[in-house]
């Protein structure tokens, strides 16, 4: 009896741990927006270990500011545990945000380590007369 209760507790705990981030992520990315119309975050590569960490974002009508405030390149050995190996921000790359425009596409070149998996975490950003909007979006992981 005790074993069964223990098992149920473990399953419930794991369910909560896994469900919370998934629901927060999907909720954030599936609702209509007053700021964003289209976006994409992806790793562009052509066979070698060099890749471009890309994002493209199109706003609803002309935005005072649009782009991304930061982008993290994350590395993993197993595709499960991720470590940030590079953070790119507007502080050093002001080109990440464009002004008074409908949309913005930008990328950052990076050299991968062979045998490792990479993904991007990007904080998309837009500002218009209504206020500001942001979304944190992950790319699909890519093995090198």
């Amino acid at each position, binding site marked *: 009896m005790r074993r069964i209760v223990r098992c149920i507790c473990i399953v419930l705990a794991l369910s909560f741990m896994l469900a919370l981030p998934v629901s927060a992520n999907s909720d954030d*990315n599936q*609702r*209509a*927006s*007053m700021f*964003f*119309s*289209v*976006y*994409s975050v*992806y790793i*562009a*590569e*052509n066979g070698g270990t060099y890749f*471009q960490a*890309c994002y*493209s974002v*199109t706003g*609803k*009508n*002309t935005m005072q500011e649009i782009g991304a405030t930061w982008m*993290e*390149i994350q590395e993993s050995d197993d595709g499960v545990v991720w470590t*940030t*190996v*590079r*953070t*790119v*921000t507007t*502080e*050093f*790359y002001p*080109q990440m945000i*464009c002004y008074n*425009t*409908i*949309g*913005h*596409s*930008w*990328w*950052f*070149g*990076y*050299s991968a380590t062979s045998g490792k998996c990479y993904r991007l975490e990007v904080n998309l950003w837009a500002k218009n007369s209504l206020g500001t909007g942001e979304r944190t*979006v992950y790319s699909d992981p890519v093995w090198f």
Partner: protein
Amino acid sequence: MVNDNRYDLNKRELETLSTADLELLLRAELENGGSDGRVVREIMGILRQRDAENPKMIPQSVEVALDEENRKPELEKTRSKHNAFRQICKIAAVAATLVIVVLGVPHAFGADSIVELVASWTKGTFQFIRPGETIAQTTEYVFEAEHAGLQEIYDTVSDLGVTVSVVPMWVPDGFTLTEIKVTENIKTTTVQAKLEFENLYIVLQIIIHKYTCPPQSQLVKDENSIEKKEIGDIVHYLMCNSGEYVAAWVTGPVEGIILTNTSKEMLVDIIRSIY
């Protein structure tokens, strides 16, 4: 009172000692930092008295020692200054080491740093980059806004080698091209163009895939269902996003998206004009 009695007793005892013994005792007392100052003064008083009675009794070394005793507070001040200076030096050395370690290995922490950055510039842009790192360059096309229209978009897309039909040949009267820009990476080329008339807009986004790969774009939509419309043998997906009408489709290596706040009917008419 107890101290005074002991003092008197010590004085008497001191007077019984020979000058040489007193000198030795005085040196010992002076070398001992925590000694009682009264004992030193007493010894010196006895030695001075004996010197007056018999000059040259007090050796020069004892005078120097006495001077040092008198200058003790001053020396202590100097010592504490030296100690403070040493501490500052230590802190500065630790801080310098930390700065070197943190700035010297920025990659390990994924942090941005001005170390290793180099300045890079073109005719119209300036930026700081790390050696070997590259970032996107966006080309913004210059055109005469008053007369610009769909032809500019068509020419831009054709120049990029696109042969499939993707640019509309019709938009409602009054719309003029206000913006067009192209961004390229190793996988795709993205063209974003905007036509405007008063508060209305039509945005055309064309993503040209250089290799066979699935579309990357995520379209933001509200909870209403997606409508499929087959026009020109291509399925177009129509949806809404908070008052904006959106169409998305794929033809060959090209991903097409139209966004407009005009109407759904107008959006369909614009799509029809592509084929």
